[in-house]
């Protein structure tokens, strides 16, 4: 059955931080729509504005110094912008829940892991203590930790186990949308593989929609249906996994792929993107990627390119396509 709204609908999100050293333009006009039961990969390098975008969805951007503007911010059809704090607290956890970048700081060292999972269940499901603890045990088992260990404290768990507990807390109330901010960056690869597999399973089982924030294109290929690539606070390319990986359109996305060692061709030379990310307090005029772009012309430095539909669901913000209908990026040439 078709729903009449999406799980997430954001229009023209802007976030800036007014600091002593100037105004940081962290998010500069992001539009995002996500359908039910889909997983979106939000990709980009440090400082691209991924975390800030996620925090804005939950209305958790620190204010001050943060200033958030947005034409639309709907989660599961509800307008989050003017919501009262009480209502907002219900939405967080129940409808939308977030796994933060650092699993180690997300847990409270003085409570057992069982208590911490139960607490979130108590708040959102209005269950009694005993029932909540019981369900917390179920959740632990679901993430592959014996329920007998519910009485242990976070420091008794390894990094991978702590991250599983964080996932258990985030999923305890069956949120409709789960935002995972680099959930495996701090983990070893074999543990990362286990955690990703677990997230994939749980997502299927509970029909959760998900936003996976990561800088790792390998993880995107593994868990996402859709991809949005961010650069300097803007989405520069967006589409299905097949579209973005199979027919890369934005020069920045191409640069990301070319910077990665190719596991199947170990001697292939890396082609880094030259230069650096722009200073977010002094964004260049025009396309923010232009100073690092091999295809840029004078025109690129004049106006910020809008995100245009190229084909299907594939969107790109690059004026090369407006100048030349036949412009193409061929990643296989590398």
């Amino acid at each position, binding site marked *: 059955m078709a729903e009449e709204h999406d799980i997430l609908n954001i229009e023209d999100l802007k976030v800036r931080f007014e600091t002593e050293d100037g105004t940081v333009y962290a998010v500069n006009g992001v539009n995002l729509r996500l359908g039910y039961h889909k997983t979106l990969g939000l990709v980009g*390098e*440090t400082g691209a504005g991924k975390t800030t975008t996620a925090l804005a969805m939950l209305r958790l951007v620190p204010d001050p110094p943060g200033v958030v503007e947005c034409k639309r911010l709907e989660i599961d059809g509800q307008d989050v912008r003017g919501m009262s704090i009480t209502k907002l607290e219900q939405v967080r956890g129940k409808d939308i829940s977030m796994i933060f970048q650092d699993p180690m700081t997300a847990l409270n060292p003085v409570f057992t892991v069982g208590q911490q999972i139960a607490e979130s269940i108590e708040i959102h499901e209005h269950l009694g203590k005993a029932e909540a603890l019981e369900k917390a045990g179920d959740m632990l088992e679901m993430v592959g930790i014996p329920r007998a260990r519910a009485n242990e404290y976070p420091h008794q768990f*390894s*990094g991978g186990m702590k991250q599983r507990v964080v996932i258990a807390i985030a999923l305890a109330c069956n949120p409709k949308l789960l935002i995972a901010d680099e959930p495996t960056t701090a983990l*070893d*690869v*074999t*543990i*990362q*593989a*286990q955690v*990703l*597999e677990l997230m994939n399973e749980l997502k299927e089982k509970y029909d959760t929609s998900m936003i996976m924030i990561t*800088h*790792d*294109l*390998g*993880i*995107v*290929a*593994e868990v996402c249906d859709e991809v949005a690539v961010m650069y300097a606070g803007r989405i520069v390319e967006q589409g299905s*996994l*097949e579209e973005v*990986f*199979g027919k890369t359109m934005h020069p920045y996305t191409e*640069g*990301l*792929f*070319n*910077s*990665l*060692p*190719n*596991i199947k061709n*170990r*001697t*292939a*030379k*890396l*082609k*880094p*993107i*030259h230069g*650096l*990310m722009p200073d977010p307090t002094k964004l260049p005029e025009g396309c923010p990627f232009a100073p690092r772009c091999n295809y840029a012309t004078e025109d690129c430095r004049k106006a910020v390119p809008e995100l245009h539909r190229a084909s299907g669901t594939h969107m790109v913000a690059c004026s090369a396509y407006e100048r030349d209908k036949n412009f193409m990026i061929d990643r296989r040439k590398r």
Partner: protein
Amino acid sequence: MADNILEVRHLKKYFKTSRGMLHAVDDINFTLERKKTLGLVGESGCGKSTTGRAILRLLEPTSGEIIFEGKDLNKLSKTQMRHMRKDMQIIFQDPFSSLDPKKTVSQIIAEPIKENKIITDKLLREERVLELMETVGLAERYINTYPHELDGGRRQRIGIARALAMEPKLIVCDEPVSALDVSIQAQILNLLKDLQEKLGLTYIFITHDLSVVNHFSDDIAVMYLGQIVEKAPAEELFDNPIHPYTQALLSAIPIPELGHQRQRVALRGEITSPIEPPEECRFAKRCLMCNPEICKASVPVLMEVSPSHFVACPLKQKEMGLLK
């Protein structure tokens, strides 16, 4: 005959802890040919950094021999060691904390040249600093800036310039790109490769990133809890991993490609503690192939299973007829 710059024999480094001896590095053996790169990979805490530091004697090894340029480093006097140290440098993971925040770029790079009295004349020293900055791709205008004013990539370039200042023969690169974004990571990896070619450097390249190590190394040694479990030329290791841990590790790499079919080698259970570890295969507890009778009988030894390919799995050794 291979021209070996370094030979490590039975290297051990134990740390005393309140719960007993922690076997951080436990009987590591390898040789390294001049102008080549040995990649050391493995998961957090397996002893990569400790190995690197013990080789440079930044940490005093518990036991073992380190033969550098034919000389046993343990047998050198303090002054001899001081001379030798010039030839061996290290680049750290964290360009943020490994540089003195109170010194300028110029002072940081010049420090080893000054302290070791390589160049005593101030002007000549400054000339050398500029030359080093150019070598690592740092624009001259940064000469008087402080590390905190620079981004991670440039800070790592300072670390590299400082290591190069002594004209070393061997550089231990301890996760030199792990803290960097991919686009900057690629810039630094290319720089390190170019420098190796130009200056004839030998590297020990420590990382937990398998696609990086594959790209960068000639030989790869896979470590698990203080021991080398497999060592082979990079291509051979990736094409034909033999140790179950190597297989699991390689199959866990997320590949940024469409429709990549993986056959993941699953792991189970708990990680063995490095404190007073039992006299058995340290991977046994997580290994789905484990046969306790064989795997828990003794500490596995690294054996050559095919030319230049070493494996320390008693099961596989038995399968190949190397172990009775």
